[in-house]
Every structure is written in C-alpha cells, then in structure tokens.
C-alpha cells in the first residue's frame, strides 16, 4: 500500500479513509472455501474499474483439497507482479494464519475468522494489526445456517469491499452475472452475504482505504486468466481444429477450445493420449489449416517423436506447453520454467523448431496469434511455452481490437500447374504445402514424409540431399531469427547489471529493476520472448553491462546455470552471463531476485 495517506483515526468514530495507489491482498483458507472466487471477483472488479490487477494462487494437487491461497494485487499504476508481501491477509483457519503471517508486510493488517483462529502469539500482535471477526458465525447470521460453508467467501468479499471502499454496484453486478442462470435464490443469497460483510463497520480497523483514480481511465479493459487468453488467441488467429488429452494445467485450454470452437465451425477432439492428439493435430494441419495441440510436462515428452515428424515434413503446427514442476509427474500444480530444454532439444536428430514464451496474460493472447503466423510463414512447428505462473493468473488488459486482429486462414484450393513442396530453390527458402484436395495439373503429386526426401517428398538416401534439406530446415529458422525484433532494454542501456527474463518472470524482474534503480543501483533488464531461434544482436546489448544474470525458475544444472542461460552462454561464449535460478515451485519475489543480485555482484 505504497504512498498511503495516513491520518489518525478519530477516537470512537468510524475509521479514517486513506488514499492508496495499490494494495496486495492475500486470502488463505482451504481450496473448498471458494477463495479463488473471491480473488476472481476482485480481479474482475479492478478490470472494470480501470485499475491494473495481478493475481497469484496455489492449488493443492490432491483432489480432496487442502490449504490454498489466492493473492491479488490491485493498483492504480502499472502492476508488474502479484507482490512479494501482502498488505492485508484474510485468513480462515489457524493453519492459514500460521502459514501465511510471514507473507504479511510489517504493520500490515490481518483479518481473521475468530471462530477458527484461536491462538495469536503476543509478539505477532505488536508486528501486525489484528482484526478478528467471527466470520463463520456472522455468515450464519446474514444468510442462515445452510449457507455457512458456501457463503463465507462472499461475506469476506463484502468485508474487503468495505475495507477498500470498492464500488458496490459493480460488485453486485458481478455477483449477479456469476450466479445468473442458476436458481435466482442463489444470487439473492450471495448478495445478502456480501451485504452482510459490507455492512460491517470494521470498527476495529485503524483506517480504511480508497484507491486513487487509476491511470488507465478511459481504457476498455478485459479480465481473464492466461490459459483463457491463450485459447482465445488461437481462435482469433483462425485456428479451427485442435486435439489434446487432459493434464493439469493444460486442460483449461483444451476445455475452452472444446466448448468454443464449434461456434466458429471448428472442433477440438479429446484423444486417447498425447501421441494421438499431436498426430491428429498434425493431420489436420496438413489438411490445410494450422491446428493446435498441447499439454504439460509428461505429455510434452510423449509428443516429441511426432513433433520431430512435423519438423522433418515441415508441416506447420502449434504446440502449447503449460509448464509445471518437473521432472516426471513432479509438482503438477506448481510453477516452473524447466521445459525449455525439451522444447528446444526434445527431438532426436537435428530437429530445429520455434519456441516462444508469453510473459503475461495479455501476451498469451497475442503470442498465440504470432505462433500461428510464424508456423504458417515458416512452415514449422511452433512451441508456445507458457507456465503455471501466468496460466492460472488473472489480469486485466486492454480490450483487443478484434475486428482488426481476427484472422482468416482458410486454405487456398486453387489448382496449380505443378508443385514441389520441398523446393530447394524457393526464393524465400521456405517449404509450402498444398492442402490435399488441391488439383495439380501436371499430375505429379507431392508426399509429406518423415524420411529424408527430395523436393517432391519422395525418400532419398542421397548424402547431398540430406545435407541440403538439413540446411533448408535450419536456414529458414536462421532467417526467422534475423527477422525477429531485438527486444528493448527495460531501463538504461548501460549499467552494472542486466537481468534477463523469460516467460512469467518478466513482471517480477522489471519490478526488481524499478526497486534497484530506486535504491540507486544500475540495474536494467531484457525480456527474451523468442527463445528458439533467438533474435540477433543481443551481444551488443550485453556489452553495456558488467553482469548479465538470467533469472529463471529452473535448476542451476550440472554446471551452475539455468536452461536459458545455457543457450545464451553457448551462443555468445560470454562468461559474464550467469544464472539466477530457483525451483521452489513459487513465482519470483522481487526481494529474492535483488538478494541474489547483491550476492553475485559482491
């Protein structure tokens, strides 16, 4: 709650209202308590209020539930991460209280359900402002006994609305929308529970808050999660066929596409396994229109053989990898960025493919479109490597101009005189396939194949052709590399430390840069979105810095650096490129990054 306008509460009167520019609220309970829902309402409200918002949550990986949190950061300015420390902690149980008090800022507010949280250590009372309310009983009072378990989250939302002076009519509308379609009683009860919380005076609070007007005023914002954004991006890009197999956290994407694609005349098929699904997507892609498949860790491993076929046959394809903690079944509901190696190098043989990573929920939407366009333009598989850190995070972003951005990629069936898909003399060096169904007047039809082949796709054992075709597959990606935009440095182009981020770590890294610069340190950052190939010219950027630290959520490996660092070190042979890595299954805290920078520059 930076730059809080504090003012002494009037003795006895209602708490003073302070203007704030942002707040981090953490809600801790069990996954059954619907705390994700509270978070979702707050995020959506922020979006409708021209505020920036970013969320973060943990989900237990066992089906019967368990401790779970939802953290939301709402700000009037740019919000780059979900926040290291909470300003307000709302906790439902003793275990939530104990487990999460450490995440609260010194002097922060802890709002707890005094029906469940019974032990408060005196030393804590001096460190944090405690507000205990018998939330469970109050809910019963507000909506009756049966609602006890179901209404607690909405009641708590009311309390938060009170504390932050949120816009009640908008929240009412959100509640109504959420429970629309069900028995109207349900929405009424929810609103009653909300009002119950909201009408609480919160007399125990020293102060209440109000957000300053947001900078985004006038922007038309939309709120969703990263997986949603990615799926809608694929639809906007014109993808009309997909195939997949369930796995957390990829499943959301397939479930959304399964439900939405038919509206556009498309289909998504749930297959018997990941191999079938990548094969089916490749078949459909060859059918004429780029198709999508995806998975998370284990399922990606299963797809590597078929992806190699798409590399060899040069068939466009989009593969989504929603990374999670590995190896093997690993930590299925935790964040990690440890699939970069398999994405780049998971194929047998020389198997160059494109790998790109979105950095935010909004970027998920646009990255999906780019992936489709790159796949088509270079006739190649493109792997979108996203992570749990954005997959389940909710953000508000500017409404895309759909009428401009939506693409029509219907295949062209105009007959041709003749065609060699693997033409070695193609002016752009890129293979183009004919969709089956296209007439070739010469009567000579091409084949797509995983064997090394001649220009028509027929198999060859010729050393020369293998050399030429290998070069063709590699050179088209070099060409792509040369066309890639060189990323802009965040912060001044010269300094002591350059932090490199990829994927969801962009926000925390940029926030770290801000904090470091505010503290007088010459830290900048560079975000690399296109991971394979990488854009050219990065070495020039590195020249401006004494240290280049690659911040990534994976292990330091056998030799002391992470997976992207390995790519950069191999390419540039610059020993100042080092790794800042961790694998605790959580997103980066700004402080963690800065602490590591401190140690490593000493």
């Amino acid at each position, binding site marked *: 709650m930076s730059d809080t306008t504090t003012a002494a509460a009037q003795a006895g009167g209602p708490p003073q209202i302070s203007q704030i520019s942002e707040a981090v609220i953490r809600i801790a309970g069990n996954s059954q308590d619907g705390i994700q829902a509270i978070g979702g309402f707050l995020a959506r409200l922020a979006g409708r209020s021209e505020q920036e918002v970013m969320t973060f949550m943990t989900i237990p990986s066992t089906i019967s539930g368990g401790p779970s949190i939802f953290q939301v950061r709402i700000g009037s300015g740019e919000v780059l991460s979900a926040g290291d420390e909470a300003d307000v902690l709302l906790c439902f149980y003793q275990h939530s209280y104990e487990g999460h008090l450490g995440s609260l800022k010194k002097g922060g507010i802890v709002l707890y359900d005094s029906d469940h949280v019974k032990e408060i250590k005196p030393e804590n009372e001096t460190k944090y402002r405690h507000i205990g309310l018998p939330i469970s009983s109050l809910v019963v009072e507000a909506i009756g006994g049966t609602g006890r378990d179901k209404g607690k989250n909405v009641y708590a939302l009311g309390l938060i609305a009170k504390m932050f002076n949120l816009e009640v009519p908008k929240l009412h509308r959100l509640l109504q929308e959420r429970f629309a379609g069900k028995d109207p009683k349900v929405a009424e009860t929810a609103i009653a529970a909300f009002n119950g919380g909201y009408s609480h005076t919160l007399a125990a609070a020293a102060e209440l808050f109000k957000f300053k007007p947001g900078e985004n005023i006038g922007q038309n914002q939309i709120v969703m999660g990263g997986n949603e954004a990615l799926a809608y991006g694929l*639809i906007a890009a*014109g993808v009309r066929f997909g195939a997949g197999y369930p796995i957390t956290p990829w499943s959301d994407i397939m479930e959304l596409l399964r439900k939405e694609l038919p509206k556009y005349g498309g289909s998504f098929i749930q297959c018997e396994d990941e191999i*079938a699904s990548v094969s089916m997507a490749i078949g459909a892609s060859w059918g*004429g229109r780029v198709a999508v498949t995806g998975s998370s860790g284990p399922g990606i491993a299963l797809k590597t053989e078929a992806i190699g076929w798409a590399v060899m046959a040069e068939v466009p394809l989009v593969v989504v990898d929603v990374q999670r903690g590995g190896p093997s079944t690993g930590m299925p509901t935790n964040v990690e960025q440890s699939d970069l190696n398999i994405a780049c190098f998971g194929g047998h043989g020389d198997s160059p493919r494109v790998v790109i990573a979105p950095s935010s929920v909004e970027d998920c939407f646009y990255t999906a479109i780019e992936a489709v366009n790159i796949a088509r333009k270079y006739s190649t598989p493109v792997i979108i490597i996203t992570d749990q850190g954005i997959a389940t995070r909710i953000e508000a972003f500017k*409404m895309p101009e759909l009428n401009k951005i939506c693409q029509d990629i219907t295949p062209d069936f105009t007959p041709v005189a003749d065609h060699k898909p693997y033409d070695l003399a193609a002016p752009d060096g890129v293979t183009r396939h004919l969709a*089956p169904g296209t007439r070739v007047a010469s009567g000579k039809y091409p084949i797509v194949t*995983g064997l090394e082949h001649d220009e028509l796709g027929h198999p060859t054992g010729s050393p020369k052709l293998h050399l030429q075709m290998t070069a063709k597959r590699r050179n088209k990606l070099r060409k792509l590399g040369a066309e890639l935009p060189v990323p802009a440095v965040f912060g001044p182009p010269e300094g002591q430390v350059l932090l490199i981020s990829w994927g969801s770590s962009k926000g925390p890294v940029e926030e770290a840069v801000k904090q470091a610069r505010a503290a007088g340190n010459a830290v900048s950052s560079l975000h690399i979105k296109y991971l394979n190939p990488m854009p050219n010219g990065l070495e020039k950027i590195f020249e401006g810095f004494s240290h280049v630290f690659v911040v990534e959520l994976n292990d330091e490996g056998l030799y002391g650096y992470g997976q992207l660092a390995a790519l950069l070190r191999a390419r540039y042979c610059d020993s100042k490129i080092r790794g800042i890595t961790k694998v605790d299954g959580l997103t980066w805290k700004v402080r963690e990054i800065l602490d590591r920078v401190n140690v490593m520059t000493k």
Partner: protein
Amino acid sequence: MPTLAFPSEALTRTGSLNVGSVPPLADADRKPLMKKDVAADHPTWCPGCGDFSVLALYFKLIEKRKMHHEKITTVAGIGCSSRFPYFVQAHGAHFIHGRALPFASGVSLSRPDLHVFVFGGDGDAFSIGGNHFTHTARKNVKMTYCVMDNNVYGLTKNQTSPTSPIGYKSKTDVWGSGDRPINPMKQAIAAGATFVARTTHTNPNHVLQIMEAAMDHDGFSFIECLSECVEFYPGAFDGANPRKGGQFPLVPENHDVTDEYAAYQLSEDLMPGKFGIFYKVSRPTKNANEAKIISTNREKFAALPDWQILQKNFDRMK
C-alpha cells in the same frame, strides 16, 4: 493494442508453385484416371511381395470409381506396407510408426470432403498402434483402413509381429513365438468398428469387392488383407490360397453382418478362417457428431463474422 511482430499475412503459395498456367477444367472434361496416371514411384518391395497386389487393386478401385487425383488421400505409418503412399500419384502422407490412424483422423475430421485411405502393416496397426486402432474404431471416424497383414515385421527384417502364430520362428523368437497372437477381427469388433472385413491378396476380385464396400461405408471401415511376405514368411497364407492347396471359405451367406456376437464367433483363430464382411452396422460417425455440435452451436451465430462471436465472449469478461 500491442503490435504483433508477425502480423497476419496472406501467404502467397510460392516455392515452385506455378499457379497462373492452370487451365480451368470442368469435372466433366476430366479424363478418367488410368493405372499409369495413379502409379508413382516404382515400389521398393521385394519381387513377389503380396503388397503389390493390394496396390494394384487400389489403382483398380480408383479407376473403377472414377476418382480424381486430388480427392485421393493416402496415409500410412512405417513398415514395408506403409511405403504405399509413395507409389500412388496423389496427395499422401508417410507418417510415423503406429500413428497413421490419429493422423488420418485429423485429416478426416477437419476435411470432410476427402475420403481418407490408410494402409499399413500388422505391427503398425496392432503392436505400437493398437490403442489408436481401438479408439478410432470406437469413435467411428470416417476412413478406410486396410491392414496388410503378413504376420511378421518386414521392414525391420523378421521379428515376431502381434499376429505371428504361436511357434513362428523369428529373430526375436528363435525358438518359436509363445505369445497368443492378436486376432484382428475380434479386436475390431470388440472395439466397436462398424465395418469389419477380411480378405487376402491372392484373390484380387475379392480384395476389390471388399475395398469398394469399405469405401462406401459411412464410418470406420477396417479390412484385414492377408499379404504374404515372401522374404521372411513365405507360405504363411498358403492355407488360404486354393492354388497352393488351401481353402478360401467365404463368410456364410446367411451370416447377419449386424449381429455382433455372430461376427465375433466367425473370427476364429484358425488359418484360413473366413473371408468377407464379418460385421457392418450403421452408427453415427465422429464426423457426424462433430458436425451436429457445430451446427447447434452456430445456430445463434450463423450470421456473424468470427470476430463478433469472439467479441460477444469478451464483452462478458469486462
């Protein structure tokens, strides 16, 4: 709105594509295809391999049914038999081992205008590809799948295949195979295939007749076609070849092809077994089910351009 580094592009179909010079050609003006028009590479099979007959009959089918080049789609996995697409002058795909069916399903489900033919071997179909067989069958994806069963792994030079009979001596079973072989007919029927037939390469008329029936079937049509590997398992099917002293017993005339249990019982293990259509029923295809979902979903949106359908969703997420 962020600017895309790779905006949508109307991709020109470059490469050696020569679009301009194609004369317009009404369907009626097109000459029927002859064998020579459909034959591509000279097959790399061993002289005498049963697969030659299957290819010749596929050519016959194309000729007889007056198909056009571009409407023929030939898909295969990996194996001797799976080299099939190279020998056919038509759009074709030579995919990876065992995964021809899901690939072909992707084509079939996204391109309902094409009839997809899949050819492959017994290893491709029932060993590595066995599960895809089951699921393609139960989903009833429209295509014709012809397994050229030689009871052996040809391309990798004589290992036991899932259909090799007990006692067969291969490089991986020098003492004779001991595993109960897969019975392709039983497998297909239990999985829910809607067209299940059996034939052998030594009876060309029968092969053609079965191919035609399979092609006309609206659903997943499966043919097991015995096809001798003269290199590694010569004589495997002499028992089904009257010219070699064997028999060619047809499915009895009174067999009810819609009776699953009768069909299952016809599928006894023994050589020569029966030949003909064992099972044939009509069940909605996956293609039809998806088409129905699409039409129901599109009803509300039919008049809208795609971006407006998406806009409606997005408006709800404000």
